């Protein structure tokens, strides 16, 4: 057994040696290799999903594209690593990816004990339940004795357990390694209920053969603030990822979109807009970026509203309403610090 332990330690040590090299200054690394390595899901429509040609789209994909636009002025300089829920943190810790943008819930434990930092929230979500309509279930309280399918390695697993314990309901957990197989198990009738974040439920429902036969129950059993994650200890890199998103939210608030950004930069007299778009001063310098960083994000990727409508809005197959993911001025909770 001794030799086995030795092997583990040495393998791990090599991995750790490599990762510490990458953790030092991610921005320099990224500039040197010329692209961002972005960890995404294995396919959640609207969040991160690859089409037949291998092009990635989704809110989480756009979070990485915004960072690429800020650094390189080119939103296409991103390479994607599809990760299962259970692989994602190890991939980031080991330096395999630079940013983890994979509908990941910000929790205390994850922020404090995994050696990771959550940047900010790009989607406010909550966990829900999906059932077949013909089951005749109206609320989650009716689920006593039900069989529940979910993906492994998520907060979902724990929330589900907490919910059923709290309400003293019996249930049978079927926890599958990958989201797609968990959905297949639900679709095949192994489970009565499929549970994940509500946005994910809407996305997964659109993948089922007959989406109209399934309904999402009204209860939201948890808070799930989803957002990009970076390694702990590289503050500059964390700032870049955080502010790339803040820029998009501020842009929507100021009415700047990918269509009018060139025009506004040329003609605006509003100093806060001029500062943001780099027409005045050099805001990007503090991040190690050039003055056009924010302009590039908006021109290449768009403001937050555009990203939302394009990927998960009411006109997409996922079809989510803005809800809480609206600007604070519109009754939502999106409130980005000012760029000044």
């Amino acid at each position, binding site marked *: 057994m001794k030799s086995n332990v030795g092997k*583990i330690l040495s393998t791990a040590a090599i991995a750790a040696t490599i990762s510490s090299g990458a953790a030092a200054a991610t921005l320099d690394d990224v500039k040197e290799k010329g692209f961002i390595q972005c960890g995404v899901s294995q396919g959640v429509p609207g969040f991160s999903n690859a089409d037949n040609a291998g092009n990635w789209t989704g809110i989480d994909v756009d979070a990485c594209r915004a960072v690429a636009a800020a650094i390189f002025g080119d939103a296409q300089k991103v390479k994607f690593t599809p990760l299962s829920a259970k692989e994602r943190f190890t991939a980031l810790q080991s330096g395999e990816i630079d940013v983890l943008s994979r509908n990941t819930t910000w929790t205390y434990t994850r922020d404090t004990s995994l050696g990771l930092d959550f940047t900010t929230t790009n989607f406010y979500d909550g966990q829900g339940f999906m059932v077949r309509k013909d*089951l005749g279930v109206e609320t989650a309280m009716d689920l006593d004795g039900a069989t529940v399918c979910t993906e492994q390695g998520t907060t979902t*697993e*724990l929330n589900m*357990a907490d919910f059923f314990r709290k309400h003293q309901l019996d249930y049978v957990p079927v926890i599958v390694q990958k989201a797609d*197989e968990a959905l297949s198990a639900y679709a095949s*009738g192994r489970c009565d209920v499929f549970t994940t974040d509500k946005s994910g439920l809407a996305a997964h429902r659109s993948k089922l053969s007959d989406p109209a036969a399934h309904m999402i129950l009204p209860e939201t059993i948890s808070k799930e603030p989803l957002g990009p994650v970076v390694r702990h200890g590289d503050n500059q890199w964390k700032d870049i990822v955080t502010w790339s998103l803040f820029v998009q939210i501020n842009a929507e608030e100021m009415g700047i979109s990918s269509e009018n950004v060139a025009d506004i930069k040329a003609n605006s007299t509003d100093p806060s807009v001029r500062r943001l778009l780099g027409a005045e001063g050099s805001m990007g310098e503090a991040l190690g970026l050039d003055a056009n960083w924010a302009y590039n994000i908006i021109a290449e990727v768009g403001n937050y509203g555009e990203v939302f409508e394009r990927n998960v809005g009411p006109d997409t197959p996922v079809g989510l309403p803005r809800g809480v993911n609206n600007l604070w001025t519109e009754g939502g909770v999106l409130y980005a610090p000012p760029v000044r």
Partner: protein
Amino acid sequence: MLFQAVLLILVVAFGYYLFHNLQANLQDQGISTGFAFLNEPAGFPILIHLIDYTEANSYGRAFVVALINTTVISLMGIVLATVIGVIMGLARLSQNWLVARLATVYIETLRNIPLLLQMFFWYFAVLAALPHPRNSIEMGDFLLNKRGIYSPNPNFQDGFGIAVAAFVLAIMAAIALIVWAKKRQKRTGVWFPAYWSSLGIIVVVTFLGFALAGFPIEFDLPQKSRFNVSGGMVLVPEFVAVLLALSTYTGAFIAEIVRAGILSVSWGQTEAARSLGLRDSLTQRLIVLPQALRVIIPPLTSQYLNLAKNSSLGAAIAYPELVAVVMGTTLNQTGQAIETIGLCMLVYGTLSLSISMFMNWYNKKMSLIER
């Protein structure tokens, strides 16, 4: 000698350097280390647990639950794969054209399809074919549906100990009878039908013990409830799918090993046995199989080891074994990759070495004793 000492020192120093580096890097990155997490409450459910387990139990207990699940599926898989392998191996050698061809088709198909694919097949294809719990297939008190196979659950009442004692007593009597019969055969050459009579003793004595105690058993019958079936015992599809996939896949390899072993015994042996007047069944049992076993056991050990390790694929179809529970959920909740993966490696190492040691002992026992 000097060179070896220097090399040893270098290896140890390098190992220490790596270990030290690992500690320093983990600390730099703010990743928790150590095994203290094993005492923390786990908070997640596990589908199959043979010992009591709830979400409030610790990660340590979840680990034990997973360890038991892995061991159970491995051992049951090994037994079933051996049975399938021996039958299929003999079938492929059969004089009957149809039986031999069917065995060939089985072996060649199963050996050449990746195991993971077979697991998905058993899980999803079979699930799709079964009915919803509301329309369960009923066979007496047994129910079959997408959620599993439900059977009556025996509840042991007072006095069950008498029945158990009778059973143990019967087994001891049977063993004594077989030993006596063998001794007598050596002495006189006359065989007493000890196997059949001992089976009779076990059945009759156990039944008598049972009757004496007044049939101290009640059955909790499965009932259809709103969503599932409640009560009774259940064999969930995840377990059945993993067991079937592992045993049929490994069984195909074992079949070929058995065939090779039997073919390795020269035909002259069989002819010699026949000319001594031994019946065909005795020829097989006393002459061919003992010699074939010597060829079969070493490669068979490898197949057993493969099966134990392949059980980790069960994680893909929700069977809560070690990889799923420890390297999946526990790793994800605690983020302690090195500790959890280390634990899993330790377990697979131990499990494989135990199987290996047992098979080596058996191999030694069966090997040719030279005079």
